[in-house]
């Protein structure tokens, strides 16, 4: 059957072009790959090749014609035994693609009305009443979480710089090499980009890696593999290929280590669909969340803090203690203001609440624990009670976690706010080295207290 040769689109945006030159004439025999014509667009001149074999029966658009629309028939190709008279019966141009009907699913709520009743919140306690507790540092809790999960399944392994023989740059992996051997506790060369990629590939291949970054500052070398490979593959594969992996290590400022070693990445990773992000404050959360992270079928960014490693907290003495993602923890109930924080920011939030109580201001303090998913219902429910909100974090102000929370609370609970939300953040500067400057660059308890007084008009 005679087929029409159509004006091709040579780029996704091309709508029309110039048929600059025919390189074949009527009566020529052509086969796949032969160059038929030169087509000019505003960007380039491209050669246009034959796909089917046959004889050029008729040239419909002469060379030199400008403004030829894409998909216009420009010539007719005859199959064996056909004549140019068959041209009139040539096949019609491609018809439009069938289009899916159905409306879009969860569209973001636009200008949602203020909720009539408080959102539903999971208020089950982290551990049953009467559970025995033991004092543990965050460091020990993290190690126990990894050890327990590595005992649970062989598919879990730990990889990173100095995690094995050195026992961890911050001693988080103490004892793991002895217990699990060098096959499962693996020292890497200093090559974050490469080993992050290898770990992601091994997750595609069926393992469940834990990657320790000596600090998250160095994970910037690996961020392409974290975002483009780990976070997006499930979606890009239509659900065929997941990436169960944990990237963990200390994040944020330590002390006096300067600008390149003192950055909080919470807001960066929180933005990425496909990633989950945890940033625990206490030892029990460090343990319970890390165990959940290792079991999670998705890539998890687990942001620890060097200063918190040595702090002790109550940890439930249970065989298998986990904390679910997306469930905030209310550390302190209050009625005058809601303070929301996570990670080391909680130290300032809790200190401020303590001091505010002395002034007769009752602050409710919420630890988000995970930033993606984020337990906004707990925050909104609290704001509906206190009508005031302050957020606390060490990261930079522009595009901060606090600015996201403020925007969500404004959209979902505007009518309940009696004052603009105040976001307490680190200062908008690279971290200085000098002790006095560093102290000022970080968020402080006094700033949190001042913010609370501002929103409570005291």
């Amino acid at each position, binding site marked *: 059957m005679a087929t029409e040769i159509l004006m091709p689109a040579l780029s996704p945006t091309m709508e029309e072009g110039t048929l600059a030159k025919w390189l074949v004439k009527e009566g020529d025999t052509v086969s*796949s*790959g032969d160059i038929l014509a030169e087509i000019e667009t505003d*960007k380039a001149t491209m050669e246009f090749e034959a796909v089917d074999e046959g004889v050029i029966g008729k040239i419909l658009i002469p060379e030199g014609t400008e403004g030829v629309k894409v998909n216009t028939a420009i010539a007719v190709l005859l199959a064996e035994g056909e004549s140019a008279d068959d041209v009139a019966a040539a096949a019609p141009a491609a018809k439009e693609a069938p289009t899916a009907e159905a409306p879009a699913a969860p569209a973001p709520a636009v200008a949602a009305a203020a909720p009539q009743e408080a959102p539903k919140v999971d208020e089950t306690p982290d551990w049953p009443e009467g559970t025995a507790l033991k004092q543990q540092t965050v460091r020990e809790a993290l190690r126990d979480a990894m050890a327990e999960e590595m005992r649970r399944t062989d598919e879990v392994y730990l990889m990173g710089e100095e995690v094995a023989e050195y026992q961890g740059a911050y001693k988080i992996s103490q004892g793991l090499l002895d217990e699990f051997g060098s096959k499962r506790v693996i020292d890497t060369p200093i090559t974050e980009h490469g080993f992050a990629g290898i770990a992601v590939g091994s997750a595609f291949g069926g393992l469940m890696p834990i990657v320790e970054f000596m600090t998250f500052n160095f994970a910037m070398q690996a961020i392409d593999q974290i975002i483009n490979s780990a976070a997006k593959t499930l979606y890009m594969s239509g659900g065929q*290929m997941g990436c169960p992996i944990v990237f963990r290590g200390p994040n944020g400022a330590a002390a006096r280590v300067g600008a390149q070693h003192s950055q909080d990445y919470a807001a960066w990773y929180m933005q990425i669909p496909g990633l989950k992000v945890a940033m625990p404050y206490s030892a029990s959360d460090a343990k319970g969340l890390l165990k959940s992270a290792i079991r999670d*079928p998705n890539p998890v960014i687990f942001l620890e803090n060097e200063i918190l490693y040595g702090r002790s907290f109550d940890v439930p003495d249970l065989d298998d203690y986990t904390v679910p993602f997306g469930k905030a923890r209310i550390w302190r109930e209050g009625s005058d203001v809601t303070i929301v924080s996570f990670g080391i920011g909680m130290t300032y939030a809790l200190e401020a609440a303590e001091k505010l109580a002395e002034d007769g201001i009752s602050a409710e303090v919420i630890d988000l624990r995970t930033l993606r998913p984020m337990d906004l219902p707990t925050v909104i429910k609290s704001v509906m009670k206190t009508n005031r909100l302050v957020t606390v974090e060490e990261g930079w102000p522009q595009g901060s976690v606090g600015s996201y929370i403020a925007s969500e609370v404004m959209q979902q609970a505007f009518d309940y706010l009696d004052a603009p939300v105040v976001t307490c953040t680190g200062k908008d500067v690279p971290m200085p080295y000098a002790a006095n400057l560093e102290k000022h660059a970080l968020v402080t308890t006094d700033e949190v207290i001042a913010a609370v007084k501002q929103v409570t008009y005291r």
Partner: protein
Amino acid sequence: MAARKTTKKPNVSAEELTSHYREMLLIRRFEEKAGQLYGMGLIGGFCHLYIGQEAVVVGLEAAAEEGDKRITSYRDHGHMLACGMDPDGVMAELTGREGGYSKGKGGSMHMFSKEKHFYGGHGIVGAQVPLGAGLAFADKYKGNGRVTFAYFGDGAANQGQIYETFNMAALWQLPVIFVIENNQYAMGTAQARSTSTPELFTRGEAFGIPGEAVDGMNVLTVKDAGERAVAHCRAGKGPYILEVKTYRYRGHSMSDPAKYRTREEVQKMRSERDPIEQVREMLLTGKHASEDDLKAIDKEIKDIVNKSADFSKESPEPHLDELWTDIYAETIPQHSA
């Protein structure tokens, strides 16, 4: 480490030659059709055709065994067809339809098949190389004897992560074959303008990884080299590098007019070195097949490709609910293979 060039011509059966012919022709015709559908606006975005390079994947797939893995860059249609993925599903992914391998959500550059052990389809130049070493890491960890083919181009061969990966792959003796598909142009930059030393197969020497250069226009020499590489990896000797010298006839992507080389250069390659013509010649001169036999194969391939094009037009666009699925998994999909 031994770095050698090979010229040996292996013995080959008629069935084998015919099968190479059929597989290479499928890729060629499929890509031509994809180019046509792109021209009609049915395929959007980036579309990188494999025309000219067919002998590379067909030769190496002939050296692979069931369960071996492969991973490559965005010029991936040939790899998928060669490892046995369904042309309908590939073409429908190109047109962004529900029947595509990624339900229309991945596109030309992002497709996967658990069943055929094809791990993508990656859009960031060089990123698939550590991922490939990671697949090999998992296989070594499990001790299952599988090898992974990690394909990348001469352009990617200058990415830093390749050398980070070479180091660890050699250090940990990972069963991975690094296949450098040297088609001589990194988009518009000829190899001599981007690469300080021309012999890419020697790039592993500093890490103790053996490598060899292979005529990538000849499917039999590719297969032969592939078998040596597979045997090396399978024997637990660690990684191996194959620099397969090939040529792409078309531009880097559909919107590349390829003005950085002459039409004569392309024509010379097509008329003197074409991988399909070479096998066709062998089949005819060796009296393994008649013109009629080959015509029948051409027809059969054309029908497969036309069917895939029809499927890719008829398959509906993904349901809008699909926008919100496959962002997080409830279970690990590859564990339920």
